[in-house]
C-alpha cells in the first residue's frame, strides 16, 4: 500500500538528487518504510560518490518473502528486526562481516556487542531499538491505560475503536504477554486459550493495519492503536491527547539491525554504509527522525534534547518488555492457524 508510494517516491527523489549521474558505485538498501531521513542518504551519497537505491517494506515477513523469492543478490543491506536477523542467518541469506572490515564497530555500546540474535555481531550492526505497545486517546478514555486489557479486553468506551498491527509476530507476542504465558509455547492448553482469548477480543477491534498505524490514530479513526514508540511520538504531535502505554504486564521490545546480505552486488559500499551508520552524528540523525534509540557511543550529544523527556522513548523502570521469538516449525503451524482463525 503506502510502502509502494514511499519507495517509489524515495527512489525517484534519490535518482534525481544524485544528479552527478556518473556515481562511483551503487548501494541498494531494503528498508522499513518511513524510517531513514532522506538527507542522511544524500549525505552518504555525496560523501562516497555512491548512487543510493532505497526500496521499502512494511513487515519483516514481507522482506523475507521478497528475498527468498529471488531478490537476494539485488540488495546489499536489509534492516530486519532482531528475531528476523537470526532467521536470515539461519536461512543462509546473510553474509559474514570479517573482523576488521568495519572500522567503527568499536562504537557500539558494550551491552549490545553480543546479542542473542547475532552473537558477536558477525552479520549485522544494531541500528535502532524501540518498543511496540499501543497508544490511547485520553480524550476518549480517562481510566488507567497501562494494561494490555485495553487491547484484549477493552472497556466499554473503547470497544470497536481499536486498530491492531497486521503483523502476526507482534500481535501474538503481545497476546502471550497479556496472558502471562511463554512465547512459542507448545503447551496445547495454552495455545487453545490464546486462540479463544483472541477470538473473544476480535469483535472489539475496528481494523488491522500496519502501514497506516500512525495515521489512523492521528486522524481519530480509532481511539486505541497498536504502534511502535517512534510512530506514537509522531502521532502525539498531531493529536496531543494520545498517550503511549507501558502495560504492567509488559510490552514488545525490538532491535532493528543493518544486515549485510549474501551475494550483495556492492559489498564494499554496504560496508561503507554500515560504518557510516556507526558514526555518532549519522546514527543520531536517524534517531532524531525516527524517534527510536541508537546504541552508538557518543551519539547523545547529537540527539534532539526533546528525546530525553519524551514519554514514548523512556519506559518506566521495574517492568520488562519481551523480544519476539522465532517459533519452531511445529508451533509456527499452530500460530498460523490461530492467526487465520483470527482473520477469517
Amino acid at each position, binding site marked *: *500500500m503506502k510502502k509502494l508510494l514511499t519507495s517509489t517516491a524515495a527512489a525517484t527523489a534519490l535518482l534525481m538528487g544524485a544528479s552527478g549521474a556518473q556515481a562511483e558505485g551503487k548501494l541498494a538498501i531494503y528498508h522499513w518504510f518511513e524510517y531513514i531521513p532522506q538527507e542522511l542518504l544524500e549525505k552518504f551519497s555525496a560523501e562516497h560518490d555512491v548512487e543510493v537505491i532505497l526500496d521499502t517494506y512494511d513487515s519483516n515477513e514481507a522482506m523475507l518473502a521478497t528475498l527468498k*523469492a529471488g531478490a537476494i543478490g539485488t540488495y546489499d543491506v536489509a534492516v530486519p528486526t532482531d528475531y528476523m536477523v537470526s532467521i536470515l542467518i539461519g536461512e543462509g541469506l546473510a553474509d559474514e562481516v570479517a573482523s576488521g572490515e568495519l572500522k567503527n564497530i568499536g562504537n557500539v555500546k558494550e551491552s549490545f556487542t553480543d546479542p542473542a540474535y547475532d552473537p558477536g555481531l558477525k552479520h549485522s550492526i544494531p541500528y535502532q531499538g524501540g518498543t511496540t505497545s499501543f497508544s490511547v486517546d485520553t480524550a476518549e478514555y480517562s481510566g488507567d491505560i497501562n494494561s494490555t486489557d485495553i487491547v484484549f479486553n477493552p472497556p466499554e468506551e473503547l470497544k470497536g475503536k481499536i486498530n491492531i498491527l497486521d503483523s502476526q509476530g507482534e500481535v501474538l507476542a503481545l497476546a502471550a504477554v497479556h496472558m502471562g504465558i511463554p512465547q512459542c509455547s507448545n503447551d496445547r492448553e495454552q495455545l487453545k486459550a490464546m486462540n479463544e482469548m483472541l477470538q473473544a477480543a476480535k469483535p472489539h477491534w475496528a481494523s488491522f*493495519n500496519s502501514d497506516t498505524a500512525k495515521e489512523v490514530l492521528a486522524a481519530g479513526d480509532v481511539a486505541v492503536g497498536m504502534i511502535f514508540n517512534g510512530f506514537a511520538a509522531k502521532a502525539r504531535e498531531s493529536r496531543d491527547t494520545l498517550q503511549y502505554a507501558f502495560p504492567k504486564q509488559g510490552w514488545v521490545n525490538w532491535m532493528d539491525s543493518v544486515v549485510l546480505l549474501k551475494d550483495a552486488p556492492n559489498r564494499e559500499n554496504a560496508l561503507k554504509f554500515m560504518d557510516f551508520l556507526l558514526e555518532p552524528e549519522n546514527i543520531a540523525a536517524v534517531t532524531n527522525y525516527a524517534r527510536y534509540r541508537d546504541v552508538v557511543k557518543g551519539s547523545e550529544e547529537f540527539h534532539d534534547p526533546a528525546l530525553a523527556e519524551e514519554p514514548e522513548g523512556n519506559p518506566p523502570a521495574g517492568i520488562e518488555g519481551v523480544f519476539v521469538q522465532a517459533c519452531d516449525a511445529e508451533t509456527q503451524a499452530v500460530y*498460523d492457524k490461530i492467526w487465520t482463525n483470527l*482473520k477469517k
Partner: protein
Amino acid sequence: MAGGATSGGNAVTDTYKEARNWLLLPAWVTLSFLVLAPVLLMLVYSFLTKEFRGGVIWEFSLAAYDQFFFDRGLFGDDPAQIEWTYIAIFWRSIWQAGAATLLSLAIGFPTAYFIATRPEKQRVIWVFLITIPYWVNLLIRTVSMRFLLRDEGPLNSFFMATGLVDGPVHMINTNFAVQVGLFYSYLPFMVLPIYAAVERYNFTLSEAAADLYANKWITLRHIVLPAVKPGVIAGCILVFVPSLGSFLAPDLLGGAKNFMIGSLIEEQFKGNAGNWPFGAAASMILLTMVLIILVIYARAQARSDKEAG
C-alpha cells in the same frame, strides 16, 4: 461484444487468412510468457511441499489442497472435517464482488445509455470526463476515499454542518466502505463496454417498436436490452473479476478485519504463514472458479446466438 464476430459474416480473403497466422505470433509470445508461464508455475507450486518460512521443496504433495478443504483442528491431528474457513472467505469475496457488480450495473447502465444518446460531439466529452479520475493511480484514489469517509472527514463534516445528523456517521472500516471503494474503482469498466454497445444500437428499432404500440419499458426489455446484452455481460465480467481478487479496498477501507481471497493469498506469500503451495493452490481454485463462470457465459452466449439464427 463477444457476439460481434458471428453477426458480421464478411468473407475474409485468402490473402488476409494466410497473413493472420504469423501476425498472431507477438500476441502468442506475450501471452505465453506473461500469462501462461506464471499460471503454470503456480499450478506446479500448488502441488509441491511447503518449506518452513517460505519457499518450496520439490516433492509432490496434496497438502495445500487438503488444507483448503479439510479441517484437522488447531493442532492438525483431529479427525478430518470439512474446512469452512476458506470457503467462507471465498463466499465473502464473491458476495462483495457480486454486490459491487450489481451496483455498478445499476448506475453504469443509465450513465452509458445517457452518454450514447447525446449528440456525437458531446459523447467524446462525456467519455473523457468518465476517464479523468482514472489517470490517478488506484492506490491513491483508494487512500483518498479513506479521507472522505472517515469520522472526522469532509463528508461527515458536511452532514453535521447541514444538521442532517448529530454525530458522525461511521462509515470507515465497514462493508459499506468496501462497496463504495469497489464500485468507484471499477465503474468505468461497466460504463465503457455498455456505452460501446448502446452506441452501435440502431435507434430506429426503438421507433419501430413505439410505432407498434410498445411502451418504453417493453421497448427497453425486449428490443434494447437483447441488442446491448454482450456489452452488459462484458461490463459485468470486467467489474466482477477484478473485484473478486481486489485487496486494496478491503484492506484500506474495510480495515482488513476479514480476509478476502486477495489478502488470503497475499498472506501466504508475504505474511508469517509463508506457505507458498497453499497460496498457489488458493490461486488455482480462484482461477478455476473464474474460468467456470466464463465458460458458462460463453456457452450461454453460443446458445443464444444459435437461437437468434
